[in-house]
């Protein structure tokens, strides 16, 4: 127990200022313990042994009271046994008590220790700066935490920076590459721009010239400085400039790329020296930062234009030459046909006279040869007309079944000769009355059937007619001619409808023919608005077909006279016995006239012939005729003029003599002219006797 001296201080008071103090006597027995120390370690209490509760860390090697006493001026560090805590303080010998007094407090190096030891601030003496130390330590910890946080953020930011840096580097590399490419692109553009074979001008939306290539400058004869910044209209002849401004303004509002081939025709450019030259242009545009920019390619087409002109002239000359040739051929054919008709006609007349067998056989050969030649001439004539663009189709109402029947009758004769079977089939739904050119239809069918018969040695030839469509008063009719002939190779099929083509030369030698027939057929079918074709297999046969749209006939078709009717006509005239009907024939050609006169005589008419229109007019004035057969083409006064005169006379005298035109062709233009001058009917050359009979009968039987 410490005795109070000048400042009396009780153990409790001592405990308040040194709550962790303790006293121990020379036997190393604890005699007094501060309240906080007792709180810290309940084992440390009065009567307890020093060394059982403490280990002296400093000063070192103190093992007993004496040694401790000797070192009492030193700083003592005591390890509290059984607890992880050290006490820091000093020893003070209290002679009055013969004991050593330890004054100190726990040595705390971590604020966490307070809690771990179950202490609070109140357990420390107010003057004790252990808490302050802890606060400093705590501040240090906080600072450390701040630093660590900063370091962490710095590391993150560093990483972020690196990332950004890398990204920036990458972007810079990309940009650099893009710049290089751009530069390269610009260089390439520049090279292409300058090396272009056309003149190029780049124009702003305002119409000023922004850029030109060297070629343009040489085309127009300007220097670069003279054109840059100038209106593009300086390159255009003044007469077009105003229009061009309007066009350019419109283009800026609705820009559209335009290739060279679509440039307007007849564009002209203006050189610096005032001369003009023809150009073609193409336009392309782009929206740049400066606004719309238009690139114009300008091609000088002077040479092209000249070449086109030369070509056109050459083509015109060729067409003209071809035309002249066709006209010549047509004229020649006509000229040949006229005497040929004479030969055939007279042969016919001769054959009706009394002949022996030999004579008849020879005459037949003459007639057949003539007919063949006429056939060839007709083909040449048609081809010439086609090539000269002179072939015109007739458009009249006709009876399809009659036409087919006629064709069939005609061809039956030939099939019989070759012992072939001709089968004709018209499907029941095929309209009978059509509007078109029956003559040309007949021509096509005769040609196809003729070929089929020609190239078929045995078997059948079939003509089939089917309705493919019927709509809006239009009937599309399919015609096919099928044979069991030699057939045609695929190679030849493709060329078959070209003029002057035959299956091959040997075919031509063997079967004859001009090789024009199918080309004419094709042209006729095309003129009718249809198409023609062939399916064939060599050795098996062929099927030629064509399909043609016809308008339906608008009027009822008068039925042609039947054969039986015709037969009755002839005797009726002859048997009449009275005055024979008087007929005037106006025909300049002697052969034709002879044939016609013979025919009229045999038909039982009293015929009189004159050789031109003037004579015909005289005869008309002198005599009364029941009918006049009027050739259209005659010297001095032709048939048309003569008819006009006759009709003019009749206007005054009254009466109407039927005038039947004898025409070289059945062209509608010729017929129209016949009707316009007042003719009543027509018959085309060569004159068919039976047709002549029926026409005359039709008019003669009518009352005046």
């Amino acid at each position, binding site marked *: 127990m410490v005795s109070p001296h000048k400042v009396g201080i009780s153990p409790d008071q001592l405990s308040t200022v040194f709550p962790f103090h303790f006293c121990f006597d020379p036997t190393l027995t604890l005699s007094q313990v501060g309240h906080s120390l007792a709180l810290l370690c309940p084992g440390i209490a009065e009567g307890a042994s020093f060394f059982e509760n403490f280990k002296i860390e400093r000063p070192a090697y103190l093992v007993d009271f004496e040694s401790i006493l000797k070192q009492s001026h030193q700083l003592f560090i005591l390890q509290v046994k059984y607890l992880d805590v050290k006490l820091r303080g000093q020893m003070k010998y209290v002679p009055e008590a013969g004991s050593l007094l330890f004054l100190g407090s726990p040595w705390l190096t971590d*604020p*966490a*220790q*307070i*809690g*771990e030891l179950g*202490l*609070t*601030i*109140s357990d420390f003496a*107010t003057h004790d700066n252990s*808490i*302050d130390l*802890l*606060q*400093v330590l*705590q*501040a240090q*910890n*906080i*600072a450390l*935490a*701040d630093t660590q*946080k*900063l370091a962490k*953020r710095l590391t993150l930011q560093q990483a972020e920076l690196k990332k950004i840096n890398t990204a920036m580097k990458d972007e810079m590399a990309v940009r650099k590459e893009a710049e290089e490419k751009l530069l390269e692109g610009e260089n390439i553009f520049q090279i292409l721009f300058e090396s272009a074979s056309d003149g190029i001008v780049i124009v702003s939306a305002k119409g000023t010239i922004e850029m030109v290539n060297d070629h343009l400058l040489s085309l127009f004869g300007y220097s670069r400085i003279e054109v840059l910044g100038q209106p593009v209209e300086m390159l255009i002849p003044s007469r077009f400039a105003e229009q061009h401004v309007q066009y350019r303004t419109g283009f800026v509002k609705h820009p559209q790329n335009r290739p060279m081939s679509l440039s307007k025709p007849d564009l002209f450019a203006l050189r610096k020296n005032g001369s003009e030259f023809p150009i073609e242009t193409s336009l392309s545009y782009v929206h740049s930062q400066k606004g719309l920019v238009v690139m114009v390619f300008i091609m000088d087409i002077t040479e092209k234009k000249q070449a086109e002109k030369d070509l056109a002239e050459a083509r015109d000359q060729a067409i003209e030459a071809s035309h002249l040739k066709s006209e010549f051929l047509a004229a020649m054919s006509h000229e040949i046909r006229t005497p040929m008709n004479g030969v055939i006609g007279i042969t016919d007349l001769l054959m009706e006279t009394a002949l022996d067998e030999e004579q008849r056989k020879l005459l037949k050969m003459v007639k057949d040869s003539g007919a063949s030649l006429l056939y060839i001439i007709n083909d040449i004539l048609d081809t010439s007309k086609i090539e000269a663009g002179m072939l015109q189709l007739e458009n009249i109402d006709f009876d399809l079944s009659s036409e087919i029947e006629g064709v069939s009758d005609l061809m039956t004769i030939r099939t019989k000769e070759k012992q072939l079977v001709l089968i004709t089939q018209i499907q029941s739904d095929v309209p009978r009355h059509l509007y078109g050119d029956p003559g040309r239809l007949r021509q096509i069918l005769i040609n196809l059937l003729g070929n089929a018969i020609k190239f078929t040695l045995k078997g059948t030839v079939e003509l089939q007619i089917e309705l493919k469509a019927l709509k809006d008063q239009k009937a599309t009719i399919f015609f096919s001619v099928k044979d069991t002939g030699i057939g045609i190779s695929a190679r030849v099929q493709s060329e078959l409808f070209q003029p002057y083509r035959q299956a091959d030369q040997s075919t031509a030698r063997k079967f004859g023919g001009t090789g024009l027939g199918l080309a004419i057929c094709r042209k006729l079918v095309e003129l009718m608005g249809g198409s023609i074709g062939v399916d064939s297999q060599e050795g098996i046969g062929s099927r030629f077909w064509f399909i043609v749209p016809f308008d339906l006939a608008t009027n009822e078709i008068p039925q042609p006279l039947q054969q039986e009717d015709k037969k009755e006509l002839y005797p009726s005239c002859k048997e009449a016995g009275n005055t024979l009907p008087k007929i005037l024939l106006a025909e300049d050609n002697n052969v034709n006239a002879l044939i016609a006169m013979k025919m009229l005589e045999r038909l039982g008419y009293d015929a009189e012939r004159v050789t031109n229109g003037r004579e015909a007019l005289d005869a008309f004035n002198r005599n009364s005729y029941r009918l006049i057969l009027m050739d259209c083409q005659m010297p001095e006064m032709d048939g048309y003029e003569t008819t006009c005169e006759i009709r003019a006379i009749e206007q005054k005298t009254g009466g109407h003599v039927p005038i039947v035109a004898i025409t070289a062709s059945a062209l509608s233009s010729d017929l129209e002219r016949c009707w316009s001058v007042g003719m009543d009917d027509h018959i085309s050359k060569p004159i068919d006797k039976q047709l002549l009979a029926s026409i005359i009968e039709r008019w003669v039987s009518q009352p005046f």
Partner: protein
Amino acid sequence: MYGMVNKAVEEMVISQFDDETWEKIKAKAAIDVEIFISNETYPDEITYKLVVSAAEILKLTPDQVLEAFGIHWVCHTAPEGYGELFTAGGKTLSDFLVNLPSFHSRIKLIFPKLDPPIFIITEPADNSLSLHYYSPRPGLTSFVIGLLKGLGIYYKTQLDIVLVNSSEAGSDHDEFLLTW
């Protein structure tokens, strides 16, 4: 003002709102400090600006912000920043309040540049005491109220706070009568 205060404002905003709001507040206050160092002193103006700016952005009054901040300080900042030392401040609300003046006295010693507020306890009783708050910084009364409310929460003790004398009403300090 101690950096920890500004840092606490930041933590409160971020924990109760988000980073974006804090950045907005900082931008509005025109403060470009990236990180507040806890033990560094910053001009008081920064704290005031942050409070005003936070009030505007969060659509609160500055007093509401200060009070919320005081609560946050005690319940989050101090335990996390001071840890066991804060816990060692007292085993009970009463202990803590009694130690509060010494606590600030020690701070003043350790951080001489700081000018901490002065707390004085009078009339300590078993369930009440008078807390006198003197500060060189005006306008922080609400912050102290928040701190006291926070202590009540921390020590799970029902604490009644009555502002007996107010610096705003002309007194040289604020006096609170605390009852629990």
